Structure formats: structure tokens, C-alpha cells
């Protein structure tokens, strides 16, 4: 009986620490969810004379994937994105973040190009508008141009099947 109370307190503490250990400190909830996607007007990666704007996709659900050729985890998620674009469920647009055109194009040739189009953000200014801090990041944007979900870090099979695709279906419906 004497040790019961300290034991309970200890178990509660261990419980908190255990939960804390399993939390990902990089998973910072974005305040932009439920807000209109910040506007941009950027040069297209494949055709520098064309511009890509955030309003081009009003009326449809789309994904904005922030990527760069220097980003290692982008390679991890890339095959999934290629597959997703082949399935044609939802258009994926790229935001080529702080990258060089030549390297970016070469990267896409090497690993495949899942993007309908990629917008160039060489100085990361649009990235700041979107609250990007760790590439890759993926945004689900609805028909009204509102951000509905943000995946920080690579898109995983789990995230795609359990979060992104169900949400896309719901938003498309």
C-alpha cells in the first residue's frame, strides 16, 4: 500500500514518455489546413515561357507535391507518385523547390515524371507561403482551392491508402 501511489505515478509518467517517444517532432500541424492555398504564379519547369498558377486547377481536386533533385527522401516517395499518376485518380502537380532547372529535368528523366506540370520556385519564396520546411511535402487541395491535408515528409503507402486517397475520393464526390 505504501508503494502503490508512487508506483501509479511512475506508471503514468512512463506512459507519457512512451507516447512522447512515438511522436514525430517533425510532424508540425500546418495552420494552412482549411485555408485557401496561397497563390503563386511561377515559371513551368519544362517550358520556361509558360506560367503555372495556383488558380489553374480551380474546380478540381489536385495534389501539390514539393520536390527537389537534391532531396533524398523524394526518391523514396517518387515511385509511388509515378504509380499514382499512371492510375489517373488525381492530377499531381509539382513545386520544384530551390532547385536548378537542368538538375531537375535530369532527375525527372532518370526517375520518371509523375507531374502534370512542375512550377519552379528557385528561391523558395512560394515554399515559404505554403509553410514548407522539409521537402518532400504534399498538399491535397480541393475544388475551391482550399488546402485540406498536408503530408510532411515522403508519401507512404499507408498515408496514400488511408488518408490521401480516401480524402481525394470524398472531395471529388
Amino acid at each position, binding site marked *: 500500500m505504501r508503494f502503490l501511489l508512487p508506483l501509479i505515478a511512475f506508471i503514468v509518467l512512463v506512459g507519457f514518455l512512451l507516447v512522447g517517444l512515438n511522436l514525430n*517532432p*517533425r510532424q*508540425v*500541424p*500546418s*495552420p*494552412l489546413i482549411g485555408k485557401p492555398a496561397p497563390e503563386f504564379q511561377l515559371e513551368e519547369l519544362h517550358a520556361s515561357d509558360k506560367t503555372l498558377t495556383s488558380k489553374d486547377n480551380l474546380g478540381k481536386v489536385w495534389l501539390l507535391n514539393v520536390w527537389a533533385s537534391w532531396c533524398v527522401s523524394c526518391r523514396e516517395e517518387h515511385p509511388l507518385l509515378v504509380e499514382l499518376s499512371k492510375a489517373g485518380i488525381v492530377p499531381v502537380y509539382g513545386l520544384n523547390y*530551390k532547385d536548378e532547372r537542368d538538375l531537375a529535368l535530369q532527375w525527372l528523366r532518370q526517375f520518371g515524371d509523375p507531374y502534370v506540370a512542375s512550377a519552379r520556385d528557385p*528561391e*523558395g*519564396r512560394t*515554399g*515559404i*507561403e*505554403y*509553410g514548407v*520546411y*522539409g521537402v518532400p511535402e504534399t498538399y491535397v487541395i480541393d475544388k475551391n482551392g482550399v488546402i485540406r491535408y498536408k503530408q510532411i515528409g515522403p508519401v507512404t503507402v499507408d498515408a496514400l491508402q488511408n488518408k490521401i486517397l480516401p480524402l481525394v475520393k470524398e472531395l471529388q464526390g
Partner: protein
Amino acid sequence: MSVPGFSGLNKFLLLFALLFLLLPYGWAKEAAPVAEDPEIERRMIALSEDLRCLVCQNESLAGSRADFANDLRREIREQMKANKSDKEIVDFLVARYGDFVLYRPPMKPTTILLWFGPFVFLIIGAIILVVYLKRRRKQIEEPMLSEQQRKQAEALLEESKGNNA
């Protein structure tokens, strides 16, 4: 190497003349300010001391060498040049990155536990301490000697005095 027509002295003079050519590079310059505008730089550093770098989460935006921190510092600098107040800039960053960028979290319903939790624990601890001390005092006070026990003890003490004498 020997060039026809160049004696040792001439060579020396040539070298000397060449050294003179290098002189402009050696002139000491006044230390250039690191930033274009030291006033803005000072304000930017002061503000970013209180902001968290999201890539290297235990560093401030002022102290981080991450590329991302550099970009945000540039953003802050530019907004300061555009005469934005510190509060406007902080609001700009919070709108995009959330309260997590602030090292001093704001007081609001979701952070009440964060602000007052420690005091709640302090009060709980104080209550436990008071209860424990009261209980202990009772335990100490309880074994009081009854009248009979005291007489016995006195008798024993008397006896031992007698023995010692």
C-alpha cells in the same frame, strides 16, 4: 632562368616594380558591414532569436545555419525593409508555420495546460505534502505515556539514580 641583358640588379628592380603592381590589392579596406543595413540586421537578429528553426528544431532562427533558416531570415529582412512591424512579421510566420515557430507560445485555450500545468502540479504536490506531514505528526503524537506508565518510568529513573550513587 637567365634572360639575356638582365643582370642581378635589373632582376631585383623588376621584381620590385612587379611588387608595386600588387600594392592596390594589399591596401587595407575598412571592414564592410555584413549586411546592407545594420539597423535592420540588428532588428532581424533580435526578432529571430525568439523564433524556432523548423528544420533544426532546437535552434533559433537567428543561430541556425540551415538553408531554410537563411531563407526565412531573408524573408524577415525584406519585410522589415518594407516597413512591416515585428508583430506583423511574426503573424506572417505563424500563419504559415503555426505557433510552433514561437519559442514563447501564446496564451490560448490549447496552451492553457502548458502555461498552468506546472502550477497545478505544484499545488497537487503541496497538498500531498501537507496531508503526509499531518498524518506523520499524528503518528508521532500518539504514543503519549499514560499516567501509570509515567509513574513507572519515574520509578525506574529513581532506581537507576540510587544504583549509581
